C-alpha cells in the first residue's frame, strides 16, 4: 500500500516535472514570441496608426484583406521583394568563399590559431559597425572604394548613390561577416573529416577538385546544412546594414522586406501598423518555407536515432 502510493507519487512526479521545468521558458516564449505572431497576423487585417485615444482604446479599423491587396500593387514592396531575392542568391556566395578560406587555413603551421581567430573577426563585431565601416569605404569623393574606381576608370563610383548598384554594395558588406561565419563552420567540419578516407582516396589518385567534390564535401554535409540555414536566415534578416548604410535609399532602391516593414510601421512617415504587419506576415511566410525544411530534417534525424 505504502509502496504503491510511493510509486504513484514517483510516476506523478515524472509526469508533472517536465511541465514544471518547462513552465517559465514556455511562459516567456508564449508571451513574447507565439502570442505576438498571432497578434501581428490579426493586425494585418486592420488599418491602425499606432495611436490609442484618450481613454486608451484601440483606434484601428478592420479593412479585411485591403492591406494585402495594396501590397500587390505597391512598387516599393516589389522592389523589396526583388532585393530580398538578390540577397538570398548572392548571400549563398558565402558558402564557396567560406569553404575556400577554411581550406586555405586548414594547416598546422605556427600561429595558425591566431590567423583563424583573426579571420573570424568580422562575425564578432556588430553589424552596425560593419555598416559604418563599409559606408566609410564607399563614401563619395574620399572613400577608398571611390578613389580606387576613380584611379582605375577616371570616374569615381559612389555605390550608395547609385540605385542600380546600391543593393550589391550592401550585400558585399553583409557577406564579409557571413563568410567568416561559414568559414568557422567549415573549419570545424574539416577537423572531423576522417583522415583514413582522405589517405585512401589519395592512394587511389584523387586530388584537388575531385578529392574535394567526391571525398571531402560529402563528409562536410552537416556543416553545409547549418551554413545554408544560417545564411538564408542572415539574408532575410538583413535589417541592420540597410538601416545604417542607406535607410533604404536612394529613393527606396535598397529596401528589403525587413526594412520596409520597419519603415512603414515605425518610420518617420510611417505609423501604418496594419500595413507593416501585412509585410511582416509575407516575410514570415517566406521564412516559414525554410524553417519547415529545417524542422523536417531535424525530425528525420530524431527518428533515425
Amino acid at each position, binding site marked *: 500500500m505504502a509502496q504503491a502510493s510511493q510509486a504513484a507519487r514517483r510516476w506523478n512526479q515524472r509526469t508533472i516535472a517536465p511541465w514544471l521545468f518547462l513552465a517559465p521558458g514556455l511562459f516567456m516564449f508564449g508571451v513574447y514570441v507565439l502570442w505576438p505572431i498571432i497578434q501581428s497576423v490579426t493586425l494585418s487585417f486592420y488599418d491602425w496608426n499606432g*495611436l490609442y485615444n484618450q481613454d486608451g482604446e484601440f483606434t484601428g479599423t478592420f479593412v479585411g484583406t485591403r492591406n494585402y491587396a495594396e501590397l500587390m500593387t505597391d*512598387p516599393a514592396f516589389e522592389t523589396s521583394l526583388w532585393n530580398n531575392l538578390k540577397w538570398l542568391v548572392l548571400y549563398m556566395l558565402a558558402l564557396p568563399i567560406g569553404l575556400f578560406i577554411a581550406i586555405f587555413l586548414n594547416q598546422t603551421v605556427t600561429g595558425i590559431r591566431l590567423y583563424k581567430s583573426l579571420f573570424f573577426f568580422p562575425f564578432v563585431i556588430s553589424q552596425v559597425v560593419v555598416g559604418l565601416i563599409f559606408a566609410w569605404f564607399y563614401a563619395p569623393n574620399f572613400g577608398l572604394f571611390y578613389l580606387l574606381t576613380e584611379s582605375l576608370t577616371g570616374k569615381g563610383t559612389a555605390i550608395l548613390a547609385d540605385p542600380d548598384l546600391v543593393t550589391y554594395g550592401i550585400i558585399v558588406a553583409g557577406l564579409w561577416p557571413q563568410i567568416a561565419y561559414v568559414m568557422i563552420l567549415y573549419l570545424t567540419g574539416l577537423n572531423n573529416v576522417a583522415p583514413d578516407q582522405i589517405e585512401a582516396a589519395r592512394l587511389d589518385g584523387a586530388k584537388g577538385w575531385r578529392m574535394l567534390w567526391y571525398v571531402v564535401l560529402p563528409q562536410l554535409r552537416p556543416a553545409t546544412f547549418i551554413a545554408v540555414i544560417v545564411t538564408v536566415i542572415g539574408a532575410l534578416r538583413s535589417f541592420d546594414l540597410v538601416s545604417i548604410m542607406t535607410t533604404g535609399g536612394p529613393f527606396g532602391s535598397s529596401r528589403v522586406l525587413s526594412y520596409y516593414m520597419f519603415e512603414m510601421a515605425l518610420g518617420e*512617415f510611417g505609423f501604418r501598423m496594419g500595413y507593416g504587419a501585412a509585410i511582416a506576415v509575407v516575410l514570415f511566410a517566406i521564412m516559414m518555407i525554410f524553417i519547415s525544411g529545417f524542422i523536417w530534417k531535424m525530425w528525420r534525424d530524431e527518428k533515425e536515432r
Partner: protein
Amino acid sequence: MVHKLTGALTLGAALLLSTSAFAQDKRVVTWNADYDPIPLAAAEALIADFEAANPEIDVQLTNFDHEAYKNAIRNFLTADAPDLANWYAANRMRPFVEAGLFADISDVWANNGLMESLASSVPSSTIDGKQYAIPYTYYQWGIYYNRDAYAAAGVEVPGPEGVNWETFLANCEKFKAAGIDCVTTGSSALWPVAGIFDYVSLRTNGYQFHSDLAAGKISWTSPEARAVFENLGKLQPYVTENHAAIDWQDAAALFVQGKAANYVMGNFAVGVFKEGGMTNDNLGFMVFPEIAAGIARAEEAPTDTIHLTSGAKNPEDAKAFLAYMASPEAQSKWNTAVGQLPTNKNATVPADDPFLTAGFEALSTATGGIAQFWDRDADAEYAKAGMEGFQRFLVQPEALEEILTQLEATRTRLFPQ
C-alpha cells in the same frame, strides 16, 4: 524649472516627488519639448519670465532628443500626457488632432487677438475651422551662396533680390565650366530635395498649386505638374552628383569649401556654414529666382508650434502659458536668442543679423503666401512618396514618365476621387 528626461519610471517618479516638494503651493504646468541646447536655454529664459509674472505657476519642461521625440510623442500623448507638447503645424499635427489627442485652443486665439497678430500662420494652425496650435517661430528658406565661389568662377555676385531664372541657369553653366557645383544638396535623408522641388513648383505655378498638389488635388501628369519637372530638369545637370548618398551637412562642407556655389536651404544651416569658417562677408542669401513672370512670390517657412494636449491636467494655466508664447515679447526674446523669425507680426527681429533681416524682408513681402514645406503640407505617406520621386528625378531625369505614373498611382490610392 527644468529637469532631465529619465527613462526609468521609478526615477521619473522620484524626480517628480523631489520637484513637487519645492513647488508645493504652486500649480504645475508640464511641457514636453525637443530642443537643442540653444533653443532650450531660450525656452528656460521664457519660463523664468513667465514664472516671475505668475508666481503661483510652475512650468516644468522635460526635454527630449530631437529624433527620439518624434517617436516619444506618440507614446506619451496616450500614456502619460503632459499639459503642453511641441510639434509642427499643418498636416503634421493632423493625426494627433484626429485621434483627439491635441485639444482645441480656438479660445486662446480668440481671447488674445491672435487671428490678427499671427495672421500669416492661421491656415497652418487650423483644422476644420478650429485652432490646435500656437506657432511661435519659423525660418525662411532660400538660396545661400558662397561669394568666393562666385569670384572663383568669375560670375557676378547677385544682390539680395536675387537674379532671374535665365541668369541663374546661365551662371550654372559658368560654374560647371569652372568645375564648381552650381547647386548643392545632400539628399540621403530625402527632405532637402523637397526644398528644391517646392521652390521650382512655387515659382512655376504659384502657392495655390503647391498647396493643392500637397493635398492630392492635382494630377502628377497634368501639364502644370509636368512644367514643374521640366524646369527642375533644367537645374538637374548642375546639382552635385552623388547627392543621394550624402547628408545635408556633407553638402554644407562642399559649399563652405567653395566646391559648390549655391545651396537651397533653410536658415538653420547658417550656423553650420559659419562653424565651417564662413562669415557675413562671403556668405550671401537671396530668394529663389523668379521663373514664370507675374506669379506672386511665395516662400517656404516651416513653423514650429506648441499644443495643448487633451489629457492636460492643468489646461487653464497651460492656456495662459500658450497665450504668453504667442505674445510679441516672448517671441522677440526666444527668436532673437535662437536666430529665427517670430510669427507674431508685432515682434522684433535683431537688426545686426543680415540673414534674419533678409529672411524677415523676404517673408513679409511674400505676397504669394507662406508654404510650410512639402513634408508638412502633405500627408505623411504622400510626402514620402513625393520626396522619393523628386530625389529619383534628380538622379535619373530620364525616368520621368515612370516617376509620374507611380506618383499618380499613389495619389489616386490615397485620395480616391
